[in-house]
Structures are given as C-alpha cells and as structure tokens.
C-alpha cells in the first residue's frame, strides 16, 4: 500500500471493491490505518477551515509573535549599538569650538597669549593664527566658578560669539582658555571674565585678530 492509494481512498476515487479491500487492509494493519486516519482528518480539517472563506490559504504568512518580538528586539539592539559606535567615533567639524577650556598638556605647552590689565600700556594684544592658549591674568578666587565670554566688537555694540561657564582658575592669578584664531574674523574682540553668582563686574580684556 502506498501514499497514492491512501490519497485516492481519502478522495473517494477508489471503486467500491477497491475501497473495501483497502478497508480490510486497514483493519488488519493498525499502523497503516492510523496513517490513513490522519489523512482523513487533514481533509476534514481543511474543509472546515475553508468553510465560508479560503482566505487562510492565500493570505500572507503570519509570523509567530515570539519570533517577531525577537526580531524587533534584535533590530533595536543593533540600532542602539550602531548609534553608539558612530557617536563614539564621530566628531563633526561643526562642533569644533571657537573657545574651549584647557584640557591637555599639549595645549598647555603650545602657543599662548597673555592678557593682563597693565596700567599705562597702550599696546593692544594680537591673537596669533591657529589655536592659542590665552592666559587671563587677574585676582581670582579658587573656590568659585567663572564665566568667560568672548565678544566681537562691532561699530556700536558688542556681539557675544562664545561663552564658557564654570571655569576654574588655574591659579589665584590666572584663568586659561583656548581660542581658535582661525575661526575668528579679523577685528577687535573682548574677553570678559566674571565670577558666577555674584554682583561683581567683569574683568574685560581686549585683543585684535589681524
């Protein structure tokens, strides 16, 4: 007995004599009979499911919800990892600051400009091209934070172009910041240093960018 004969029996395509012989074989062979019964039940089940509509036979596959969730979770994890990877390695040029705190020894040992209020000095300091450490000399309290504002001097007004907050004096007489001269247009500038959360007036230091 082969599958083709089972198919024919279940589909009702055997003659009555053939069907009776098939049935007797089934009665004598229980394992074979079970195979036939599953086939009968598959046919009945399909008939019931398609009663009224055969949409389930032609619809798009429905994915198992658990599998879908796993795929979604994997996707999210991958996205997060990719974003982290890009964020940790990518420093966009637009973020390069005009003014920043001094953070490395290389910066501390590089080109510098010293700004101090010297009575009787008429010369105006000149900011060299490139990144320069600007040493601002004055009397500073190490227990406080200071804000440093860089203004561009226009004809009639000052325009703030960069501000650093919470700067610590590097000594009681010095606050240091880095300024990128290449990013400044030629003209006059003013650095204003003021103790945060106080009524004190700022100390102003002028320089020019040729």
């Amino acid at each position: 007995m082969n599958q083709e004969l089972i198919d024919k029996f279940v589909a009702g395509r055997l003659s009555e004599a053939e069907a009776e012989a098939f049935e007797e074989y089934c009665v004598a062979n229980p394992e074979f009979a079970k195979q036939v019964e599953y086939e009968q039940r598959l046919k009945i089940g399909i008939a019931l499911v398609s009663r009224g509509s055969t949409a389930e036979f032609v619809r798009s596959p429905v994915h198992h919800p658990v599998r879908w969730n796993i795929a979604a979770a994997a996707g999210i994890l991958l996205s997060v990892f990719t974003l982290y990877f890009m964020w940790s390695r990518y420093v966009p040029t637009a973020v390069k600051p005009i003014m920043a705190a001094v953070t490395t020894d290389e910066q501390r040992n590089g080109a510098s400009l010293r700004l101090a209020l010297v009575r009787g000095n008429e010369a105006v300091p000149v900011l060299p091209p490139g990144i320069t450490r600007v040493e601002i000399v004055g009397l500073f309290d190490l227990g406080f934070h200071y804000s440093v504002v860089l203004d561009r001097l226009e004809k009639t007004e000052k325009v703030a172009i960069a501000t650093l907050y919470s700067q610590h004096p590097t000594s009681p007489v010095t606050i240091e910041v880095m300024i990128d001269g290449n990013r400044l247009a030629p003209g006059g500038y003013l650095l204003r240093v003021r103790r945060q959360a106080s009524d004190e007036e700022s100390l102003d230091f002028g320089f020019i960018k040729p």
Partner: protein
Amino acid sequence: MDFVPGGELSRRIREGDVSAESELIRQFEPGLRVLLRRRTGGDHGLLQDLVQETLLVVIQRLRGAGIDDPQKLAAFAAQTARNLAIASLRKAERQRTDVDSDATERNADPAQSVDAVAADLESALAVRALLRELPQARDRLMLKRFYLDDHDKDIICQEMNLTEAAFNQALSRARRRFRQILEERGFSKRDLLSLGL
C-alpha cells in the same frame, strides 16, 4: 504494537484469554475507524458507537461459535462494521420518514453534536496551526487544491509550476507536521473536555 495473527487471536479468545480481547481491540480499532468514518458522514458519535458495537459483536462471536476462517478475522470485522453501518443508516432513514424532520433537528441530541463538533474541531484547529506555520503561500494553496478542491496531483504540479518531487516533499512535510500538531494536542489520548467546549 506487536501484530498478533487473526488465527491466534481467535484461538486465545475462544479459550477465554481476556488479554487477547484487549489486543484485538487495539489492533482493529484504527482500521474500523477508517472504515466507518467513510460511512458515518462526519457523525463522530455514531462512528464511535459503531466501532464499539463492531468490536463487541466480533468478540462475542469469537467467544462463542467462532468464525469459519480465523485467518480472515480482519475481513470478518470489516464486514461486520459495514453491516452495522448499513443497519444504522436504514434505521435513521426509517426514523426520518416516521417523524417531523424539523422537530428532529430541533431536538437533536446535544451530546452527540458536541462529540461530532469536538472531533472535527480538533482537526480544524490543527489545520489552522499548520497553515500559520507554512512559510510559503504556495504550500498553503497546494493543500487547498489537493484536499479541498480534489484536484489531481499532475494538474496542480502543472498549473503551479511544480515538479512532482517538490509537490510530494511539501505535502509530506505538511502531513508530518499536521500529525505532530494533533499528537501534541492529545489526539492519541483524546479527552473532549480538554477542548474547552
């Protein structure tokens, strides 16, 4: 299951061996179910009753007079089942001519309906689970055309651009999975209450 030849079963039952009767039931029941399913028009309750009745008749016969050719015990059981199915059909037809058919339908035995529905429901649920698992629309459509539309395998292969080997493989996979699903749902140790009806 070890197959015990009909002649030996007949002899042991005649000698009063109760275990032989159990073996006869285990051995013949699946085949009788196949045979009677075709003759009971989807009435699962009637199918069960006729299977039981057939086995009872066969065992009583073997306990008593016995059969002419014990080697043909399976054929005897099959013919007994057919006779009982025909008798049941005649009885049902007589009843239909005696009574108001609408009233019969209204007062149908609810337990029997549940039996019939539950057995078919199991199959339908298993088919639905199977359809959900089949990844390719082609396989689902193939099942529909083969089992529901009764299309010939050659025609399906030709129209769906399938080789016979691919068709057989997909069908065999579906059959195997359907059987697995039914077994996982407890088909072999059917308990109608567990279906939640």
